[in-house]
């Protein structure tokens, strides 16, 4: 049969955003693919060069609209490296809790969007219902539902409100049972298994060679997580273990493994926040004033020329990294150059190539299982 190129995107439910997948098909079979990105390139790196270090945080929030807190945290660690800021331990605990709550919300958004891809529309409504609980909690911290501007260089904007701990514990415990409900619905659902198992194989070494990271690699049976390998925050003090999935084939992880690893990761996040809230220094029911030395320590605002800052952070989709050079405008008040490494920017071209050999109908399942987010891809 004659081969032809068809274009999926930029407006296509499979994209989960705005990009184009060009697919060369031979009948129903994918024989070649090409990813085209850049539709929502906003030039964040350039904009940041004319903002001071505090003003950069909201831009980082907006890199990924379902995972704002982890991206802001990631930037903050790089800025702290550059400015040599110290952080009180209570603030580190609050950051850990906020990041893990964000991970829950982000994975729920992924699951909610992935369900309709596969043909399970109910899942969307269930996940949105549960995500609302975590958005409420994050709103208590940051004041808004999606873009929080919460972490600060040297601490966090404000302490956890009175009663936050109890509400969080209740919601997380409820959600732990809800994960079981999801698994009851999905793990034995014929449509779910047929669409996901044996589709979209990718093995660990190939993925690492291509630069893929995070849950997608852990789904292939390898325990590699920035949170233990290059630790930041207080991950060494709370009770958790990385979620790793056993792949069932020599070909590596299929879409089903990638779904499993994210469910397990949600469990671990629940376990982590429940442990962290009990261990938080200063007590879970105290509320320190804004700028108190328990939650914030004043940091320098200028960085000299030649100074650099780097952070490696386990975002919800893999390792996000920031590299900042000091000595920009305003006698070092602005970054001279700020570079952002987005895990999805590397992953999407890789995923496009893993689709070769599968059917056109498998494309939404394969793409969706890698959890693409275009906001951070295009920056």
């Amino acid at each position, binding site marked *: 049969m004659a081969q032809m190129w068809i274009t999926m995107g930029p407006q296509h439910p499979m994209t989960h955003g705005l990009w184009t997948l060009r697919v060369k098909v031979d009948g129903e079979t994918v024989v070649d693919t090409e990813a085209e990105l850049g539709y929502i390139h906003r030039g964040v790196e350039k904009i940041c060069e004319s903002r001071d270090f505090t003003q950069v945080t909201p831009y980082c929030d907006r890199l990924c609209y379902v995972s704002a807190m982890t991206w802001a945290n990631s930037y903050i660690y790089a800025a702290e490296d550059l400015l040599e800021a110290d952080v009180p331990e209570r603030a580190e605990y609050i950051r850990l809790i906020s990041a893990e709550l964000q991970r829950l919300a982000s994975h729920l958004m992924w699951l909610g969007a992935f369900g309709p891809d596969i043909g399970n529309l109910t899942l969307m409504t269930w996940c949105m219902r549960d995500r609302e609980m975590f958005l409420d909690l994050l709103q208590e911290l940051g004041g808004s539902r999606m873009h929080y501007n919460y972490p600060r260089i040297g601490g966090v904007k404000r302490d956890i409100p009175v009663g936050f701990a109890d509400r969080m514990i209740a919601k997380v415990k409820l959600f732990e049972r809800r994960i079981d409900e999801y698994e009851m619905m999905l793990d034995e659902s014929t449509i779910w298994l047929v669409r996901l198992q044996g589709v979209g194989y990718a093995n660990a070494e190939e993925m690492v060679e291509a630069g893929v990271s995070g849950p997608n690699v852990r789904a292939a*049976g*390898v325990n590699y997580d920035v949170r*233990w*390998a290059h630790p930041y925050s207080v991950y060494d003090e*709370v009770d958790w273990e990385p979620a790793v999935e056993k*792949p069932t084939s020599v070909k590596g992880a299929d879409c089903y493994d990638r779904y499993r690893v994210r469910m397990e990761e949600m469990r671990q996040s629940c376990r982590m926040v429940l442990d962290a809230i009990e261990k938080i220094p200063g007590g879970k029911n105290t509320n320190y004033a804004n700028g108190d030395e328990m939650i914030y320590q004043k940091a320098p605002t200028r960085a000299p020329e030649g100074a650099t800052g780097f952070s490696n952070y386990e975002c919800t989709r893999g390792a996000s990294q920031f590299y900042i050079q000091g000595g920009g405008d305003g006698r070092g008040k602005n970054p001279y150059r700020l570079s952002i490494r987005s895990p999805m920017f590397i992953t999407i071209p890789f995923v496009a190539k893993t689709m070769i050999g599968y059917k056109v109908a498998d494309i939404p399942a394969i793409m969706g299982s890698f959890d693409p987010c275009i906001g951070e891809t295009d920056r």
Partner: protein
Amino acid sequence: MGTTVTLSQNEAAANDCLAAINDRFSGSGVVASVERHSNAKKYAFVRITTPPQHWQALAKWLRFDLGVNYCSMVTGTHYPEGPQERGWEVAYHFLRQPITDQLPNTHTVYVAEKLDGRLIPMEFEVLIPLENNDSPTVPTVQHIWGGADWNEKETWDLVGIKFEGHKNMHRVLNPHDSPEGFHPLQKQHKIRYHDHNEMYDDAQGFGRKPADEGRIK
């Protein structure tokens, strides 16, 4: 608990890597040192500065002898007022990850505190200063790390650093029909609004006059 790599493991691994690099490359212009982050847990990493002509040899050695298997990030920087020998700089960030391929139905769970030698995760920063001229060029490492492929594409697209030998180089974030030689992260390009006063005085943008008016298309 206690599942993270400790500072002493990290220190030992960084020093091992430094010794190996110095052993292999001393006297060639490749300079390595162990540096320390000043954020979070103050972990150490290896910083290497290399002239561009030694970059591919160093890259192959890092990849195949030192086991640095993950290219995470490429950053190009433009220093128009820099010295003659450093008008541009390319910074590569690498990670060494203890990853082996899995047999079916197995998974590898590392006990972080018991890792030693090459299995300890380590972070590498390679800086390549380039001469101050109009066509900064550095040899590609696309064939050594697959992860460098799209990162190098992005660096060329945004900063304009040419990667010699890179196959299939094209625009990735800018529009595909951007004018040749247009790389927005070069310092001669100014963004339209310089500070917020200008923005608030004329919020609608009617009297908009960008700083580079008349000089761009």
